[in-house]
């Protein structure tokens, strides 16, 4: 059995949740901008629940085109839930924070920030395997958002270290560094 540094994980998770950034200096906590942006420049913000539609060329109705009006703004409900989850995590109630994040994911299931936070809560709870999977899920939804991807790789590295997978952690670190230089 490898000793699990719970306190360290908890600190990290709280840090991620509170500051919203485990690897950059920008913070989002209590800044005037919406909580959800968490230090990620608006230009890099992922198109939440929206898709950059593709030009199509097949007949009149190309499959790539999505003409549904994509919500450009974060639903206020999601912002409120994220805020609530943050408070719950700050108070050390990680199970409650996870439930709140799951509730937010039901509303905005393609929002990579929500999946990232759920990953950090799971890591803090000691579930390193789910933490890694959830961070990967966040990454799969975070195309173009290199800052968030880097944070997810950082979290994956930590999760792997927790499980005693040093080389896996190292390769995750490499992924992170590659993203930071972009």
């Amino acid at each position: 059995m490898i000793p699990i540094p719970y306190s360290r994980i908890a600190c990290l998770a709280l840090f991620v949740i509170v500051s919203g950034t485990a690897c950059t200096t920008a913070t989002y906590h209590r800044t005037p901008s919406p909580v959800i942006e968490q230090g990620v420049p608006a230009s890099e913000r992922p198109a939440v629940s929206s898709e950059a539609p593709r030009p199509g060329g097949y007949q009149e109705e190309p499959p790539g085109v999505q003409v549904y009006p994509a919500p450009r703004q974060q639903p206020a409900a999601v912002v409120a839930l994220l805020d609530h989850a943050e408070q719950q995590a700050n108070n050390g109630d990680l199970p409650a924070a996870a439930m709140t994040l799951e509730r937010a994911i039901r509303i905005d299931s393609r929002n990579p920030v929500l999946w990232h936070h759920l990953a950090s809560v799971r890591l803090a709870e000691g579930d390193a395997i789910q933490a890694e999977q959830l961070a990967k899920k966040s990454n799969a939804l975070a195309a173009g958002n290199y800052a968030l991807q880097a944070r997810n790789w950082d979290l994956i590295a930590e999760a792997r270290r927790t499980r005693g997978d040093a080389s896996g952690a190292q390769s995750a670190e490499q992924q992170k560094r590659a993203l930071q230089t972009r």
Partner: protein
Amino acid sequence: MAQRRKRGRKKSRAKKLQRRSFWLPILAMLAVFLTVYIAYLDFQVRQQFDGKRWSLPARVYARPLELYAGLPLTPDALDMELTSLHYQPVSSPRRPGEVSRNRNVFHLITRRFVYWDGEEASRDIRVSLSNGVIERVTHVASGKDASLVRLDPVLVGSFYPSHNEDRVLVKLEDVPPPLVNALIAVEDHGFYSHHGIAPLSIMRALWANIRAREVVQGGSTLTQQLVKNFFLSSERTLTRKVNEAIMALLLEWHYEKDEILEAYLNEVYLGQDGNRSIHGFGLASHFYFERPLSELSVDQFALLVGLVKGPSYYNPRTHPDRATRRRNFVLDVMVEQGVISRDEASRAKSRGLGVSRAMNKAIDTFPAFLDMVRRQLRRDYREEDITSEGLRIFTTLDPQVQWQFEKALDKRLGILERNHSMPGGTLEGAGVVTTIQGGEVLAVAGSRKPGFSGFNRALDANRQVGSVIKPAVYLTALEHPEHYTLATLLDDGPLTYTAPNRTTWSPNNYDRQFHGMTPLYLALANSYNVATARLGLDVGIKPVIATLHDLGIDQPLNAYPSLVLGAVELSPMQVTQMYQTIASGGFQTPLRAIRAVLAADGAPLQSYPLRVEAAINPDAAYLVTTALRYASRVGTGRSLYQVLPSDMDIAGKTGTTDDMRDSWYAGYTGDRLAVVWVGRDDNKSSGLSGSSGALLVWRDLFARLGASGSLQSDVEGIEYFRIDPATGLRAEQGCENGVELPFIKGSEPVADAPCAKHGLPLQKPVDWFKELFQ
């Protein structure tokens, strides 16, 4: 009997001098017997009271509806939800559970409700809807926006113990005082002063009955009535009367009045619903008025109190006149006892009974879904705990989706039977609807007959899947971008495969034609069997099986070549799991019907957290979804758009088996996935293909449900290139039939098609941008 023995004891004392030697042992034995007997009764009384008093059925709730600006929701859907929650339409809501509607604006006061993640307070809100979405949710008092309001969840069923007792437990402090006062006034005026039995009140009851010339009052105290309900059978013997009296005294000796009263409120028998008996005021309130006790008015309290005397004789549904007389009598007693004023009573008397139409909640509304819930619960709980511990089970069921699914299925099968000259009832159908990213099961149809609780086809009907399996073959290929892309030309020419044991296999296409060299995405979109068989043999049957396991098919699969064309039996639920993994971009989430389970006291017992597993390459999943979108637009699923709006983005696959025994359709939009199976229970031919059967059910369902959200998110590893489908090469700005196809970065073809042209202005993308920003 015990009293008779007591008397016997006195007599024996009188004769003790003469017959001492004879009576003493008998006396001692009697004393011992009496002591033991009373101790036994005492034990029973305390056991019942201190231990678990009632077995409480588990309550199963649908998902709560969350109201927030931006939620796709029609006014009628909201109306339907509020109706099933028994919100009362009023002109101006004042209490929780009341609503007023002015076209697309609802004013409602929500009910307080305790969820697994905390309490949702009652809120006075206004909800405005327009164009199929919630425009605003505001607090009525402050006029400020409410970011998120959760309604109470619809109760969709209960799991009863075998003896079918049902209850909604209430705490004394939550019972409205007028009800308690009315009960004491009518049933046991001296409740707070007697010691369990009250000889005076027996006399008073006798007098009242003589005065009224009918039996209007019983002489038993509430304590005696409780004992009768609680411990004893309904036999009318002296022994029982004596036991009742002793136990009533013991109960009063051990417990406070309020504890006894609370037990009474929850125990008293107040009605019958089929084989389900209605115990306690909490359940009776729901049973007769479809509302919690806290929302009833004084005339309704009086009616319930009146029922104590004879729930079937005074049944307001079958004997409204008797029930009205009884209610009015209770109101009179309440005036006599100073509980209400004469004015209040006359106002209450002027009201109708207000009893809801006969309902039969004992029959669960959605048996196929509840069956799935029960199976998931059995993994974690014992059967007796499921039915008796009062578990509160919060499920993922979306009643709106479930109703629409049931309607679509039954209606469409009826139409199909008429159009294909089949006798009514020939066809059966089943299916599952889920969310995509969270894997939450929204609806389950186990039969075309809603409410049918027999064979659950969604879970238990293992049927050949046919072409529905094909995406697994293409996925296996596309996970090797160095060999396969959407533009790779596949050979759909005649094929004969000779197995190692020298048997041969020559698959045919559905249209009995061969289509020559076909780009991979169109081979899947058009469901070409021969091209798929060749592809499957090229990538290998075992890797295809591995992909199926990755997608969530747990059962062992035989490595026959015909597997790649769907010669394998799966249930609709298994097919749903497989497509969930593809639809969510390669992340498998085990399908869940339960979100959380709470104990009767609200303590969280178990949560069923959202879990994901990166199961297949997200880039390959993206490519398969793209091909399945082509299937809807130009392939086997194109009849979808005869009805559905062209802006609804759908990825899906039809499936048809030999002799048209099974008709399948698995399809997903941005937010929901649904799998439908149609066929016959006797496994004979239904004459329906995937697109002429199951697809039409799916289409009807999504015509009702609509769709929101985008089907595909951007994926980092994907790039789009314009391709000439005839050659599978780069079209650039040329080629009339050129298509934009996604490629895993670096896998795109480098060579130009003969029709390719460079350097022309990018016409299409400009148009496309215009369209986007209009």
